[in-house]
């Protein structure tokens, strides 16, 4: 535990040059991404990119409460669904444009977060996780049974998004993918920035202090209940915005898809695979999971094995894989999670950093918290 706390001064004294460098890198990537819709005509590729942005935003939002504050919520679908439902219900039934509705979604998510926070933060560790699942399930069941308001299991099918006009000038009519692409990109960048700011602010240090040792933090004068609620509020707001964006983009929501426990698990998976509690972890997680799930769905993995000559398409094993591998993407997610937790407790990003540090002897690698806490058998 001591090692993690020692990380803080290290982060503070990190040279300004490397900070500038990573800023420049992010800016360059963002610039390239901004130009993508101009260069790329394929809506499918844009769609995959939008899914990627969605995954990044979900992961980064969860990271604030789960990664930095150490409160492993497995009920974040509650905020995602609240955001999606608020925006779409206002648009569909009250004809309130989504750029106003999204603010209502933020407000609704804040209310939900405060209620959930005041209930669940009385509990710690695994008890908090269990309570967060229970609350999310309660919200899902309410959405399912409160038919006059939410349309129950039939869900909400979005008709049309009104065209966005500023001063009489048409900005977008939402018919192409480009506006969604840009909104997704902005959302992903904003959540990334939020994580960056949280990681480097006094607020963020309070979060991290709570993560490392709540009682010690308390004795240092940090009010855990207050800071946990702040972290949850930040996380909930951006999760809700992501949910609103999802609802508008896909155009259909129902309690199962936007409030289900699968979604909550997915948010955590993005972070855990990339590297929890780091800026870029969720980005890496999304980079692994989104292309992986698309590739598996299109059965690319099996084809790759065949074309590489590793397997014969006509052999029994080959036929089995061809038939079934496309269906197995959740299985592969599961295997990934198990492997990551056992062998790379800091995620892909942490693992890569460790490898890099090992190559350049000048730097001393920071031991992973898992290895320190894990006892003799934790890291074989």
């Amino acid at each position, binding site marked *: 535990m001591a090692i993690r706390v020692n990380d803080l001064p290290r982060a503070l004294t990190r040279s300004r040059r490397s900070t500038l460098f990573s800023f420049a890198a992010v800016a360059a990537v963002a610039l390239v991404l901004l130009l993508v819709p101009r260069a790329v005509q394929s809506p499918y590729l844009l769609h995959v990119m939008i899914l990627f942005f969605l995954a990044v935003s979900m992961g980064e939002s969860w990271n604030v409460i789960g990664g930095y504050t150490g409160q492993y919520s497995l009920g974040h679908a509650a905020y995602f669904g609240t955001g999606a439902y608020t925006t779409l219900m206002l648009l569909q039934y009250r004809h309130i444009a989504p750029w106003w509705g999204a603010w209502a979604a933020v407000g609704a998510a804040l209310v939900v977060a405060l209620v959930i926070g005041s209930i669940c933060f009385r509990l710690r560790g695994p008890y908090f996780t269990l309570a967060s699942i229970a609350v999310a399930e309660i919200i899902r*069941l309410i959405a399912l049974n409160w038919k006059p308001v939410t349309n129950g299991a039939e869900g909400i099918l979005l008709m049309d998004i009104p065209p966005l006009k500023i001063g009489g000038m048409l900005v977008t009519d939402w018919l192409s993918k480009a506006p969604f692409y840009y909104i997704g990109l902005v959302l992903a960048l904003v959540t990334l920035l939020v994580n960056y700011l949280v990681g480097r602010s006094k607020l963020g240090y309070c979060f991290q202090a709570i993560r490392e040792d709540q009682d010690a933090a308390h004795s240092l004068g940090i009010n855990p209940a207050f800071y946990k609620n702040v972290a949850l509020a930040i996380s909930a707001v951006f999760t809700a915005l992501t949910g609103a964006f999802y609802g508008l983009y896909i155009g259909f929501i129902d309690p199962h898809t936007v409030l289900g426990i699968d979604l909550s698990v997915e948010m955590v998976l993005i972070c855990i695979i990339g590297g929890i509690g780091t800026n870029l972890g969720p980005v890496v997680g999304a980079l692994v999971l989104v292309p992986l799930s698309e590739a598996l769905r299109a059965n690319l993995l099996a084809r790759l094995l065949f074309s590489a000559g590793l397997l014969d398409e006509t052999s029994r094993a080959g036929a089995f894989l061809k038939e079934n591998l496309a269906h197995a993407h959740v*299985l592969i997610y599961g295997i990934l999670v*198990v492997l990551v937790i056992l062998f790379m*407790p800091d995620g892909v990003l942490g693992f890569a950093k460790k490898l890099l540090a090992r190559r350049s002897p000048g730097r001393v690698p920071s031991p992973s918290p898992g290895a320190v806490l894990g006892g003799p058998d934790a890291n074989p």
Partner: protein
Amino acid sequence: MIVFLQSVLSGVLIGGVYALVGIGLTIIFGVMRVINFAHGELVMIGMYLTWIIFTGLAIDPFVSILISIPAMFAVGALIQKTLINRVLGALPENQILLTVGLGLVLSNLVMLFFTSDYRILTTSYSSSTLRLAGLSVSTPLAISFAITSAITALLYWFLLKTDTGQGIRATAQDRDAAQLMGINVKRMSLLAFGIGAALAGTAGALISPTYYIFPQVGGVFTLKAFVIVVLGGMGSVLGATLGGVIIGVTESLAAVYISAGMKELFVYVLFLIVLLFRPAGLLGRSRV
């Protein structure tokens, strides 16, 4: 009145099976402090095992537990040895996620080999009933309740009277102290996970004549088991038994007097209330 009695009776009978799932989870938690998110998947594997034995060897589901109990014990011990043991000292969050991942792997592996078809066991007594003072009781459910009670009694005897059982309880009470007293803590962990898995598998076997089987069926039981265990007090076997019956009856009454679609809602609300006002559970020692 007859409606009320009938629904309480149905609740108690189904609650017995829930209790079995809950007891398994609570023993695992007690000994290792690991919340097993893959517990429902163990129930699911127990169900498939029963189905295979029934369709392949034509052995009655209630007899087949003689095969599935040792088989599930081995599965549990294997999971403990290869996976859980490696993260015993790690962050509790990582333990949770490991079992979440394990659950995904198990349910999707089963789906890969058995497809996601619903399997339903049809025995000669699947839809037969006993009449009891104007109430009807499903025969297979009554049999499974009797077996559940017997197994629970056996388990109490094992935990209270045998040396190994006392070792498990000592480890649950204080792992370090138990180790200092010369108890083989590692062996106790292995036993605990094995017993937990065997109980989950047995519950799966006992419920399969009156229920149906598909790869994702575990999720229902995982969530219920959490509620039961927290309700009874984490680590308390007696608490889990009581918790199972309470949940069964709550669901049953909520379905009759409010709405079937809302019964889970009441279970979760009850869960939150207990978590907030009696976090140690009804019979647990306060340790939160």
